[in-house]
């Protein structure tokens, strides 16, 4: 009996010893890829020192845009030969959405951020797409000094102008900024959207939002600018639409009763935006002024879901259309469009932002000295010229000085470009709560 126990004990001890040996023998060569459960396979040299990851929602109705965006980043890295100065850099595309939700998911964002922080090969992250997701990821990556550059986040409080208590410092527990964005924040869009409403002879605007971080933010920005009183507009009402509702006739009735002559849809098209537009059209008439921000900028989805009801609505997007791009931007759109099989003018504006974010990131890595904190040094208070979105500078908060918003006007099954607006600073300042 005793002897058998002894043998057993010996076996157990041997097992643990083996385990320890196994642990000791772990060869590391090149970058450690991020887990396959949320990220794509490594693109670029497998012996690369560093990884740049994109963090985007690859499922749901923004899929078309985000997939193209990942391709733009990959394109940019490939153009650079997967090198940033003296460092070789590989690329992985990570997904922060779940198919069930069809959009970004809080737990997924947090898990992804944890993965980036832990994987010491990750030197920078391009993302996120949704501001709500950024609110979760930025504090986590900040603690590890990991720089993020977003091509799409527009929520103001992430970088400046507190909308909520503790913003934006609460996103930077280390006190050092590690997040920047190459896209103009909602205050620009809110000001431009209000200006455009004014230009379209609206007098009283009903502001809707989808009760999402992004939609609520941009809707609030519009509301605040209008309430600022400089434009002579007024807010007829401010309310949320429920993405799960079967009909929005009730909202249409309310808007009609409020005497509004325009409606602003602050939110995402995938939150039942198609049905919302349909019911608004039905209740308010074919000529009623409907304006939506870049949450509706996937024109194909918007037009498909809303059908003929989308006809005549205005959609704003941060950034410039193809014809307004400088030569670098046009060159990018042509070259990139060729690789993904799109005409240059059809390249989604977000692809330009993605490529720009990638260029900023590569430039920062080149001068980083190979450390995460080194990357951040190359981002703030720097100017960037001849990027796919033109020339711009990032200030100490990580905000861009290029606040151009372009407008599109849906006609039939097309959404041709209408104009660009660069809102004056006095109006932008009104957007804060």
């Amino acid at each position, binding site marked *: 009996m005793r002897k058998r126990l002894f043998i057993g004990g010996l076996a157990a001890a041997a097992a643990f010893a083996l385990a320890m040996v196994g642990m000791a023998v772990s060869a590391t060569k090149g970058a450690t890829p991020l887990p396959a459960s949320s990220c794509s396979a490594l693109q670029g040299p497998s012996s690369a020192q560093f990884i740049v990851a994109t963090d985007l929602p690859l499922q749901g109705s923004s899929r078309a845009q985000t997939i193209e965006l990942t391709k733009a980043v990959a394109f940019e890295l490939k153009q650079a030969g997967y090198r940033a100065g003296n460092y070789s850099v590989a690329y992985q595309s990570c997904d922060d959405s779940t198919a069930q939700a*069809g959009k970004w998911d809080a737990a997924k964002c947090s898990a992804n951020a944890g993965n980036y922080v832990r994987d010491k090969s990750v030197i920078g992250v391009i993302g996120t797409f949704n501001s709500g997701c950024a609110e979760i990821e930025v504090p986590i990556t900040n603690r590890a000094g990991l720089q993020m550059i977003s091509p799409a986040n527009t929520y103001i409080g992430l970088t400046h102008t507190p909308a909520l208590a503790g913003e934006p410092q609460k996103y930077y527990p280390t006190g050092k900024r590690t997040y920047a964005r190459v896209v103009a924040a909602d205050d620009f869009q809110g000001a431009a959207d209000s200006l455009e409403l004014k230009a379209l002879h609206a007098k009283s605007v009903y502001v809707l939002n989808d009760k999402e971080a992004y939609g609520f933010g941009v809707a609030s920005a519009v509301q605040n600018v209008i309430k600022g009183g400089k434009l002579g507009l007024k807010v007829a009402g401010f*309310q949320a639409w429920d993405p799960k509702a079967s009909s929005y006739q009730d909202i249409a*009735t*309310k808007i009609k009763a409020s005497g509004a002559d325009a409606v602003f849809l602050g939110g995402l098209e995938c939150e039942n935006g198609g049905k919302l537009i*349909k019911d608004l059209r*039905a209740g308010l008439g074919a000529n009623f002024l409907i304006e939506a921000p870049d949450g509706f900028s996937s024109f194909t989805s918007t037009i498909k879901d809303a059908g003929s009801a989308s006809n005549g609505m205005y959609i704003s997007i941060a950034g410039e259309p193809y014809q307004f791009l400088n030569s670098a931007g046009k060159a990018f759109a042509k070259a990139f469009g060729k690789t993904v099989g799109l005409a240059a003018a059809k390249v989604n504006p977000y692809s330009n932002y993605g490529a720009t974010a990638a260029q900023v990131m590569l430039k920062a890595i080149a001068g980083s000295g190979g450390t995460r904190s080194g990357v951040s040094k190359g981002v703030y208070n720097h100017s960037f010229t001849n990027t796919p979105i033109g020339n711009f500078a990032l200030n100490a908060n990580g905000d861009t000085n290029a606040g151009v918003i372009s407008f599109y006007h849906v006609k039939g099954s097309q959404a041709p470009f209408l104009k660009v607006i660069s809102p004056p600073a006095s109006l932008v300042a009104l957007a804060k709560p």
Partner: protein
Amino acid sequence: MVTEARTEQLPIRRFAAINPIPLIGLSLVGLLIVWLAINLEKTPDQFLSAFLIGITTGSVYGLVALGYTLVYGILELINFAHGDVFMLGGMICITLISEVFNLHAGQAAYVVWPAILGTLAIAMVGCGLINATVERIAYRPLRGAPRLVPLITAIAASFILQNIALATKGPNFVPLNTGSSGAADFLPQGNVFTFGHGDQAGRYTWASLIVVLLTVPVLTALLWLVQRTRQGKAMRATAQDREAAAMMGINVNRTISFTFVLAGSLAGAAGLIYAVYFTSVRFDQGFQLGLIAFTAAVLGGIGNLPGAVFGAMLIGMIQSFNNTLSWHAPGSDWTQSIVFGILILILVFRPEGLLGERTPEGG
């Protein structure tokens, strides 16, 4: 040890002590009426719009609620999957209308109506079969099991049906072509009547009326079926006492299957109406709407057919008034909470529903 005094004066009277619950209920209803009256006075057009929207939504809820009530009446089972059967019905209809029959605006009535009736027939048969299959697989093998077991498989069935829709139709809203009334563009788009004037004018479209007009004959036919026909008698007998019904020579399994087919085809009909009137369906909408319909069924007294429709109308109205009215309405942010709040209050304080009768406890 024995207190004689207390034995002397026995409380031999009815235990009809003052019950605060009906009082609270009545005062709540009173407040509701006052609130509605003030809104009516302030914004009559808005009130009328809300009322008309409520009737239309209520009709759709009614058709779904009938399915819940039928199944609950016979099996005492909350068929969670019912809402998803309804959603599949909507999907089937949208697919048929836009891809098979290819209906669009400007087609003649003799093209549109046969196609719609054909779609209705296919959806009803399809959903009936789906519902019966669910019963066969998920409920029948568990008959006699503790009550909670089929409830759990009902949730399982609901998830499976949702995923079938997800796999075939994807995660986004599946839309139908629409016209200027917001309803399907091949339906008549004109107004039955308009009210109010100027910018505030409201209107009632033919499409809305058709929804209500479709519900009425379905309910009448159903009532006739359950109360007048042999099959209906078998259903009622099975609902009363399954064992006794079996002894009387009723094929209990077949009767239950029939009930599920019936409930499913009602869901199919509701699916069609939803498709042509609300014009877009997503894979996960059925569950939510099913819960609302279940609330309606409970509100009217579960197991009671006219009660289900009554409850559905009420829920439709409450939702619509809450969402549409301006004066001190909590607004659509709280609709879901209000509906579930009603469900909880009714279940806790009046589980037999508004139209139901108290049944012998444990009888």
